[in-house]
């Protein structure tokens, strides 16, 4: 009977397309807004995610998230290194530095100064040049999106010069660093040079990046660092979540996106529910005829559920394809930070299922209580 159910569904092409459109529209809203929201939240902690070899982030006890930087004394570094379970610890400098191109364009950049000796703390994704190129005189690395913002439409090229706080800098590498929440251009330089570019002064250690020695967990080592130094030490995962949580709690972003997602569900239930109800109502005599011929209520419910499932699956599939294509297209250029991981796709599938369930409840009831004698009424 499944094939017959599908033939009934596909036979009414206008309503079938209307149902698909309803599901697709609401699912697109949910997927797109969900992806944007997750992407935006992950951008807040992009710097933490990009420093992949770092287990532990150490900072001033008052720091609430990645962007509340309060400089620490350089003497804190050896104290952290002395904590049992720390394999290594390096300084990271983070500051906003004004930038000027030779043709006069002005931007702000997020300057990240990584350890002079090891260069730990930078992204590992390089489009041109390498991490080691940062050792070249006046060498800095710039992210690709930032480069394209400074020189739109021009091909990527190393060796370009610019001014950072009135000091000369040369682009020696181009990275594919994750987009930051503030949309600043992201630059990497060795620690000593980065602090020289900054108007905030020398010897400012924004963070101490550390790694737990073999046999120690990052959380345990972080707790030991906090206990012995009085600094705030968090595992990379915890610091990332703390940063995201700060934005969740202190901005209107979750509510704004949440409202759109709820609207997507409401619109979906309304459009799909109404259209599906009309579809079932117009086919009521057909369902009645099948019931009169001896099709059980259970089979009829299965038939309607199959129709609803196909509508949901096709609408969801179309949307996932569109969303994936859109996100792929959007992440090619400067529009970074769109995110469609498997768990968003799974979440959208769950919400689509919810929409279809809510939308079909009324229709199922009509079919179950349907009097087969309806077929005798003219």
């Amino acid at each position: 009977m499944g094939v017959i159910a599908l033939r009934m569904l596909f036979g009414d092409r206008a309503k079938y397309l209307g149902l698909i459109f309803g599901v697709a529209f609401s699912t697109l809203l949910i997927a797109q807004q969900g992806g944007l929201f997750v992407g935006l939240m992950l951008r807040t902690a992009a710097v933490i995610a990009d420093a992949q070899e770092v287990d532990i982030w150490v900072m001033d006890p008052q720091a609430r998230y990645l962007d509340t930087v309060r400089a620490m004394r350089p003497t804190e570094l050896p104290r952290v290194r002395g904590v049992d379970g720390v394999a290594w610890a390096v300084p990271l400098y983070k500051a906003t530095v004004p930038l000027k191109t030779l043709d006069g364009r002005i931007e702000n950049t997020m300057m990240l100064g990584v350890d002079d000796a090891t260069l730990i703390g930078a992204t590992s994704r390089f489009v041109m040049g390498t991490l080691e190129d940062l050792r070249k005189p006046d060498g800095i690395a710039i992210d690709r999106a930032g480069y394209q913002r400074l020189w739109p439409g021009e091909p990527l090229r190393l060796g370009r010069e610019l001014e950072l706080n009135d000091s000369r800098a040369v682009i020696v590498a181009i990275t594919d660093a994750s987009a930051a929440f503030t949309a600043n251009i992201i630059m990497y330089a060795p620690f000593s040079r980065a602090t020289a570019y900054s108007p905030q002064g020398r010897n400012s250690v924004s963070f101490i990046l550390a790694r737990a020695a073999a046999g120690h967990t990052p959380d345990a080592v972080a707790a030991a660092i906090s206990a012995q130094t009085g600094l705030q030490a968090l595992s990379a995962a915890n610091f990332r979540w703390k940063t995201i949580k700060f934005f969740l709690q202190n901005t209107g972003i979750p509510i704004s996106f949440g409202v759109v997602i709820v609207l997507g569900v409401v619109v979906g239930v309304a459009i799909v529910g109404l259209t599906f109800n009309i579809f079932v109502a117009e086919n009521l005599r057909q369902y009645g005829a099948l019931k009169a011929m001896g099709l059980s209520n259970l089979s009829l419910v299965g038939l309607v559920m199959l129709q609803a499932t196909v509508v949901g699956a096709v609408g969801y599939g179309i949307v996932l394809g569109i969303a994936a294509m859109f996100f792929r297209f959007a992440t090619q250029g400067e529009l970074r930070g769109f995110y469609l991981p498997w768990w968003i796709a799974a979440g959208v599938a769950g919400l689509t299922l919810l929409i279809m369930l809510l939308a079909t409840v009324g229709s199922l009831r009509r079919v179950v209580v349907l009097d087969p004698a309806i077929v005798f009424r003219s």
Partner: protein
Amino acid sequence: MEFAISCRDVFKTFGTGERAARALRGVSLDVRPGEMTLLVGPSGCGKTTLISAIAAMLTPDSGAIEVFGQNVAKMSIGARTMFRRRTVGFVFQQFNLLPALTATENASLPLRIAGRSAAEANRAAAILLERLGLADHLDRYPDQLSGGQQQRVAIARGLVHAPRLLVCDEPTASLDAANGQAAMAIMRETAVQADRTVIVVTHDDRIYHFADRIAHMDDGRVIDVVAQERVQHQEHAA
């Protein structure tokens, strides 16, 4: 004589209070096996309610309805569903063909509902449709068929699973006179067999001569049952 259908003091009221409509007010009726019985009477006299009850589609308030020895008035919903599936065939006034299915697929529906494979059901339906003169229309959709052809598909659907009871509701109401006569002739020829009973609800007195018996209803009761000989006699006299 063992009757195929035996109704005794059947009552059915729809609604309650002032809005109550008493559709059946103590109907008693016996229908013989191997015969075509017409159920006639003015609109609202209870014909459709009675065949709905006989076909196990609604439960009367009181009374007994025995169809081939089974009291359908006392059956559970599930038992009624199984009874309809195995024992009853239907021909509806508005055909109620599924527009998305071909003539063969429509006619095969009772067999599909009974769990037979699509190939087997379609084969059986095609044989019956060919007998009904639709050999060239097996793969046509309802909107590609004339009213008469659609009614023949509906007749095939009513008979394809060899039911012991065929219930027809105004089978000629949507057809012109010629097509109505043709449909009844086909029904008379293919449906009426020794082990099958056919009940036809109709307003169309032009098809009375196809009946073995005619039961007249009025005001929720069967007031008279006339055998075929009397029908012919009365027609002569008229």
